[in-house]
């Protein structure tokens, strides 16, 4: 439905060409300032900006306009100003380089900031060294697509988020590349929205940070080498599919951190080489299916506060530990997963092992309590202890087990990278 409205909006936007004019802004001509063009233009006109560097402090778009850059004109914020503010509906911005916006502790200054816009389309821009990159505040039906954002922040306190959305609805964030910001993409109180095919790498805190944002979808994104991975918190009905979470490593780093999540679907994702692939706390009624976990330190850390979650048809390859948990109480279902450490047999040849698999190893429990015991991992002594525990479980939760582990890896749709 939202796409219909969006489409309707753009048809309307392009549907009144008779009255529309194009204002060409270029350095050294009569119309050398973008602000003049913005003042002269009537609603639904086009402002075409030619190559050059424009230092016009803070530009504000306050009527429906098409803003187009040709030859990558530069909007320079001189580390003091907010280069572009949009306070209107039906605005599109494309082909600009927005650089060096100011920074402040009381105010969130951004390269491009949209205030309560409807049908605002920000696409194919380059944003460099900005505090916040693209900021959507109270927007609806907006698209942010194909932008490249690069910042060079070093500490969390002095850098802002790449694409920041606050109190929005039905927005779509697609095909962007974000690096070096605090959070790559930040969603707070954003509903019915989608995040597709973005690449978020090397951000200081999270690749994606997601709070109180219900009914959202994120698909085909890649989150790589971010400070603490991806965090999804206090949210209902999130759909996360076909994403890649890779190389998020560190003492408090997660591929995916789920906190207070309800009724969500996490499927067909690839988790590779993270310290903890999924850390979940207070997560309920969610489904984890067809995911691949490979070479992670811990594939899953399931805290006792999680219940009614189901893990089915996931593949676990070469993880140091498959699962660790902090209690004997297990309220989640694990079944029909493939575990590369499974050593059981399948006499009736139905593809499922005849003896249950216990994914929590003794040493995973031990190293949770004494992290430095990690030093003895893969020692023969530890192997013997683990073996003894497998035969007679005493410390590891007895009922955390996969009753029908798959004998062969489940063939998923996710392409292994």
């Amino acid at each position, binding site marked *: 439905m939202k796409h219909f409205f969006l489409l309707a909006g753009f048809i309307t936007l392009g549907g009144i060409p008779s009255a529309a004019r194009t204002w060409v802004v270029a350095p050294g001509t009569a119309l050398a300032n973008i602000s003049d063009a913005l003042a002269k233009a009537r609603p639904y006109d086009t402002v075409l900006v030619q190559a050059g560097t424009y230092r016009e402090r803070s530009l504000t778009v306050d009527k429906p306009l098409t803003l187009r850059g040709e030859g990558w004109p530069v909007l320079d914020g001189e580390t003091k100003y907010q280069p572009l503010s949009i306070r209107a509906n039906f605005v599109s911005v494309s082909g600009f380089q927005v650089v060096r916006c100011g920074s402040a502790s009381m105010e969130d200054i951004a390269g491009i900031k949209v205030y309560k816009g409807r049908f605002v389309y920000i696409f194919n821009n380059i944003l460099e060294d900005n505090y916040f990159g693209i900021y959507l505040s109270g927007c609806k039906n907006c698209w942010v697509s194909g932008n490249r954002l690069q910042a060079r922040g070093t500490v969390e306190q002095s850098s802002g988020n790449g694409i920041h959305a606050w109190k929005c609805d039905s927005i779509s964030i697609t095909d962007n590349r974000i690096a070096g910001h605090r959070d790559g993409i930040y969603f707070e109180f954003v509903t019915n929205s989608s995040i597709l095919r973005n690449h978020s790498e090397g951000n200081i805190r999270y690749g994606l940070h997601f709070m109180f944002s219900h009914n959202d979808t994120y698909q085909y994104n890649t989150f790589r080498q971010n400070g603490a991975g991806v965090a999804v918190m206090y949210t209902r009905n999130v759909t996360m599919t076909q994403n890649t979470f890779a190389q998020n490593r560190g003492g408090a780093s997660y591929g995916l951190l789920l906190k207070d999540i309800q009724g969500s679907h996490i499927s067909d994702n690839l988790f590779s080489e993270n310290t903890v692939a999924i850390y979940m706390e207070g997560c309920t009624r969610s489904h984890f299916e067809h995911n691949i976990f490979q070479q992670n*330190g811990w594939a899953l850390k399931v805290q006792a506060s999680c219940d009614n979650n189901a893990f089915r048809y996931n593949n676990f*390859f*070469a993880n*140091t530990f498959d699962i660790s948990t902090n209690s004997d109480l297990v309220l989640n279902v694990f079944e029909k997963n493939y575990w590369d450490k499974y050593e059981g047999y399948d006499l009736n040849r139905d593809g499922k092992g005849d003896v249950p698999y216990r994914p929590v190893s003794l040493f995973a429990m031990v190293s949770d*309590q004494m992290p*430095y015991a990690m*030093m003895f*991992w893969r020692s023969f002594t*530890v192997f*013997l202890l683990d073996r003894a525990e497998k035969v007679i479980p005493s410390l590891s939760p007895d009922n955390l087990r996969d009753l029908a582990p798959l004998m062969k890896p489940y063939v998923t749709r996710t392409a292994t990278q």
Partner: protein
Amino acid sequence: MKVATVFKLGQSATLRAETKRPPMPMLKVAKYAVYDILQNRFVLAYMLFLLVVSMSFFNLENDPVKGMMSLLNIILIVLPLVSIVFATIHLYNSYEFMELMLAQPLRRSDIFMGQYLGMAASLCIAFGVGVGVPVLIYDGSGSGAILVLCGLLLTLSFVSMAFLATVLSRDKARGIGIALLLWFFCTILYDGLVLMSMFAFSDYPLEKAVIGLAFLNPVDLARIAMLLQLDAAALMGYTGALFQHFFGSVTGGGISLLAMMAWIVLPLWWAARIFQKKDI
């Protein structure tokens, strides 16, 4: 060892000793030691065993990383055992040859080091072919190179220990007993003891102590070097990061390499000292 060749070696050494010392008598002794070991065929069998095992590990697992994990167990358990027991037994068996050599005007240290070089070279070649070649074919990454390097260093240090076990006792059974005890201590007992003490002192900050304790066992050093390759993700978590920082850094890596060298040199040096003064 053929008696004729020994005589030839001895005679030429005698003749030259009157004028000047023969060139590199140590290498010559090593050469004969290698011939002798090759006649035994055990080393050949060992090489084949390693070759078959590593090939099958890599073929069974699609992922070379998993193959390496399985191979690591062989390197940490079987390799030390074979190195130390075979070297000990062989050294006892070639005692008569050594006595004969001692009757010649050769320095004791040359004979001893020659034997060591011969033994170390044959076991290292067996390991290099048995494990090094499959790793190169199936994996070929940096972690594969480290696996092979760890295996070679472990072989050298356990041959050193075998020489120590041999000179400590004239009795073959006792010597093999000492060798087995050393192996058992390094591979199983030591980790168990440290784990136990870690449980006992878990209220104290033990991170640095644990790093120090790792240096007291060559098997642990090799294991940790591989851990950094295979379980890097897990080591980055919690206190694991401390180990990653230490062993993963150039300084830490250098220090662990030096410690590994010490585990080769020190037992050998001690054994050589005993051998030097020993009443044969």
